[in-house]
């Protein structure tokens, strides 16, 4: 187990290091922050002073050496846009992001697994067609449009929920629903497909012949055997929720990491881009390890080694 974790961590960190190096140089190819933060008619002296203050006056290699030296101490520098340490800017957005992702993924699984299973239990029935239609609808609908329509209906017309921002429990409803939208549809389809295949397996037919109920068979035996593709897709979608959710941030002004990263790119806030990629990278690595562990728990044939 420890060996598995150390190997997994080592290979992941090597990949993350490579990504960080690429991000460092790619970010600087996108243009100088001085052109964004200073007036268009700023003097050369102002531009020079700005670059000096933000360490942008040094040669690129020298900037990279400084970045590596500081990053080893988890110091990613100062955010130009937010005027605070970049790590603080990123980490302050992480708790809300993780909580939102956890709630949304939990609810997604609670909804998608039963729906996919019931659809698989009666293939081509009205129920199956209804669930398939629903899942295709949620997987296809543009989340941006969905979010705005929800605001117009539930906030403006009905006055039931706040339009945006983060306040009480009610402020979570629309962001969570928006984040769940696509994963619910996709995972329902994955569950249905995996369950159909499993339910047609010989051991299930045999058990059925022995008089086991479909419900017992489906939820006790077949679902566990169908779990691997579900875990894979759910893990992938959870990663997307952690580093994505930009729509939720943009529409609902949700303080998430997705918006922090997108804003940092637009603002040429190199320090925040680098800190954001690092933190999200770590989160994805941990998520992948978690998915591997869940594989092993779900299927005893898979060993953590």
């Amino acid at each position: 187990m420890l060996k598995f974790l150390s190997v997994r961590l080592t290979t992941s960190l090597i990949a993350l290091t490579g990504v960080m190096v690429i991000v460092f140089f790619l970010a600087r190819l996108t243009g100088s922050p001085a052109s964004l933060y200073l007036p268009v008619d700023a003097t050369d002296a102002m531009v020079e002073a700005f670059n000096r203050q933000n360490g942008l006056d040094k040669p690129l290699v020298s900037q990279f050496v400084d970045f590596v030296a500081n990053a080893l101490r988890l110091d990613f520098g100062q955010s130009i846009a937010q005027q605070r340490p970049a790590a603080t800017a990123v980490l302050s957005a992480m708790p809300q992001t993780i909580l939102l992702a956890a709630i949304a993924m939990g609810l997604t699984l609670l909804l998608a697994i039963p729906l996919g299973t019931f659809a698989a239990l009666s293939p081509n029935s009205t129920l199956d067609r209804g669930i398939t239609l629903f899942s295709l609808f949620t997987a296809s609908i543009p989340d941006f449009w969905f979010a705005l329509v929800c605001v117009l209906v539930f906030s403006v017309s009905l006055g039931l929920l706040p339009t945006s921002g983060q306040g009480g429990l009610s402020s979570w409803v629309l962001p969570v629903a928006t984040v769940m939208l696509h994963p619910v549809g996709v995972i329902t389809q994955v569950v249905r497909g995996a369950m159909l295949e499993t339910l047609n397996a010989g051991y299930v037919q045999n058990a059925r012949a022995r008089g086991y109920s479909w419900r017992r068979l489906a939820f006790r035996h077949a679902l566990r055997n169908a779990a691997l593709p579900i875990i894979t897709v759910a893990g992938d979608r959870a990663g997307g929720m952690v580093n994505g959710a930009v729509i939720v941030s943009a529409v609902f002004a949700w303080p998430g990491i997705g918006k922090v990263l997108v804003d940092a790119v637009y603002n040429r806030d190199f320090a925040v881009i680098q800190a954001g990629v690092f933190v999200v990278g770590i989160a994805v690595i941990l998520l992948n390890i978690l998915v591997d562990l869940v594989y092993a728990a779900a299927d005893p044939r898979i060993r953590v080694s």
Partner: protein
Amino acid sequence: MLAVYKFPDCQRQLILTQRRLRIREENLVTNYVKRVPALKTLMLSAAMTVVGGAALAAEGSIVLVLPSEPTSVDACDDSTNANARVLRGNVVEGLTRLDPKTGQVEPLLATEWKRVDDKTWLFTLRPDVKFHDGASLNAEAVAFGINRSMNADLVCQTLSLFKTKTTASIESDMVVKIVTEDADPILPARIAYIDLPSPATPPAAKTDTPIGTGPFKFAGRDIGQSITLAANETYWDGAPDFAEAKYVWRSEPTIRASMIKAGEADIAIDIPFHEAEGLPNAQEYATNSVFFLRPMLRKPPLDDLRVRQAVNAAIDKDTLTEVLMDHSGVPAQQLVSPLINGNIPDFAGTAYDLDRAKALIAEAKAAGVAVDTPIELIARSDLFSGINEVSQAIQQMLQEAGLKVNLKPVDSAAWSPWARKPDSLEQPANLLTVTHDNISGDASLSFPNYFSSGGRLSMANDTALDEKLAKAATLVGDERTAAYRDIAKAAYGEEIIIPVAALQSRLLTSDKVSYEANGFTDIELHLADVKKK
């Protein structure tokens, strides 16, 4: 409290009379003075209802929803819209301010000013004004604030507005002396952009807790979420109506409008027409911002006047503004609005005439101009809502006229090398999309940037025009206005820039507040002008 509300008109009348008397006294002792008009005094006094000397306390709170968060809350960065509309006139104030309707300079923290010689000005300060930290407004504090903004190492946004070195010093306790290296006849207007921080502000570092003299104190900031201001009960011009103002940021215009409709906010700006249509509390206003194209004058085919005239004639501004801009613009023929002295009254400009555009291009081609050279249309995606569609339409219109135009969408950072010298001089033939706003009342903050050979954003290279600009900068009054109009006529005749649309915006208010939008609203949204209904 009930008694206070019982006779508001009488109270206001009393204050009005007191103020008129005060103004008359000031008129007697000063010569070269600009004053608050009586009507302005009436409006300001409405914010201050006094009974027996006790000021009416501010109460309640308002929420303002804006598209973008300030990038800095330091007073010396108040020249960008996002920063100024939260801080300027609310937390921090300058010596003077500009009237949004006339563009005239009005007293603010200075009650009067005098030009001693070409390069020296004396500003007399308003007495009994205190910063939010209790420090008194005096010449020392003002000199500190002005010189701090001029510190090149601090990289203040406002610094670029001062083309000549400007230094403040103490003349006496309540008189500050401002000296400019070169003559600056419009210094009182220019100084309106310098907001004055408390002397306790770090002199060589930006602050994230601004302290000023304004009607509101900076109460707190949740980065990315909100900024909260609290009423300054001892404000020199009377406490504001509301005890608290909270700013929140929503980039989506639909959400900003929804917050008003759902009763979550009281003022929302930059609302598209379709979100405001039919609402009784919607206001449409001109922003003083003009959208124009800047041709690359130094490379073919745009170095030929006929080609530039063809570009102007080929753009159907009526269709662009009516169909594509969703009522967010009206056709424009000039760089500056009527608020600015360089605006030419009744200037006809160039009418849409596709046949003429085609003929001009044919004429240029016959004369050997390489009209087939590809022209890059540099479309900056964040200029205004719908810029991408407008740019595509312009591309189509120019292609229809016979030019070869490639559309190149860019963000603001990628736009910069196309816009600013020296990089812009190395670019291929292009038409640059630009928006420019000027609320100073004076064309010196517009024309040199775009029309002079040395202008950072200019592609012009015309010695005669440079001389005219240099001379105009030294003139005052009607002579100055005439000189800038003459320059404008010459520049438009040479198609140095091609104006397309004067931008308009919309604002929504809740039933709780009354606020009259003006040409400054997108830049300065004064909370003292927001009243309880």
